[in-house]
């Protein structure tokens, strides 16, 4: 959502999410390839599937992460393009939701 709060038990928040702090290396691949299965954020379990956005470049993903890291009161480190590229290396081929 526009304010980073997510949506009840459906969509986890980005604002104040411990997931961003604890697993930054997982984030680039989630943006690109989506996510399926359970995810725990701030102690709550979420299971709504998220579609990836395949067309985003490494550079765009880096910008998005840095936005998320600093928006809505978040105060997480700025990441560099090279770091994001390393995190993206093991990323599976982007999946479609169907």
């Amino acid at each position: 959502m526009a304010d980073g709060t997510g949506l009840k038990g459906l969509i986890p928040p980005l604002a104040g999410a411990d997931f961003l702090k604890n697993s930054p290396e997982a984030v680039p691949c989630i943006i690109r390839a989506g996510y399926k299965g359970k995810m725990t954020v701030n102690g709550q379990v979420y299971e709504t599937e998220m579609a990836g956005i395949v067309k985003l470049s490494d550079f765009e993903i880096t910008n998005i992460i840095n936005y998320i890291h600093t928006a809505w009161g978040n105060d997480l480190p700025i990441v560099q393009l090279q770091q994001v590229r390393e995190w993206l290396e093991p990323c599976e081929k982007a999946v479609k939701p169907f």
Partner: protein
Amino acid sequence: MRGFVFFCSLAMFFNACQTNFEPQALPILGNRDVGPSGDTIYHQIRDFSFIDQDSQVVNNATFAGKAYVADFFFIACPTICPKTSKQMLRIHDHFKTEPNLLLLAHSVAPKYDTVAALNRYARNLGVGSSKWHFVTGEQAKIYDIAGDYFSIAQEDPTAPGGFDHSGRLILVDKNRHVRSFCDGTDPEDVDRFMRDIEKLLNEK
């Protein structure tokens, strides 16, 4: 200058007049026809029958004597659905104790959004089928009825998530007439829409 002053007083006069008018009733939207006896035939939501998140049949009778807000969505929708669902939730919460208003969300991806999937979705949203029905059914029937709600729903492999649909929220009265709609991704438009809902519920 004198002309300007005159114009201003004229404008004030009309503004003053306007505040004395009764708030206008909501219109009945859609194409009209003239029946054999000369009566106006208004656009109506057709007969339908779908299945909701608790495996209950949801049809026109479900909304007998009540108004409802309808929309189209699908669970894995990556684009507008989270926004429209958030606005639907706002409406849900605002009219929680209002027995004459229900909500009806149609899945445009019924082959994936099974009863079990919709049940989990509603549960995670914290809402129940006594107020908010999430329905699945025959895809063609859902796509056809979208037109009655001035909405589109279609399968489109090139659309994000594989399905394309509009994000409108549509207000239907107890006579199956569409009385108002809004852009479900725009919170301000939804504010206006909620005032329309109040207006409809206050109709005699």
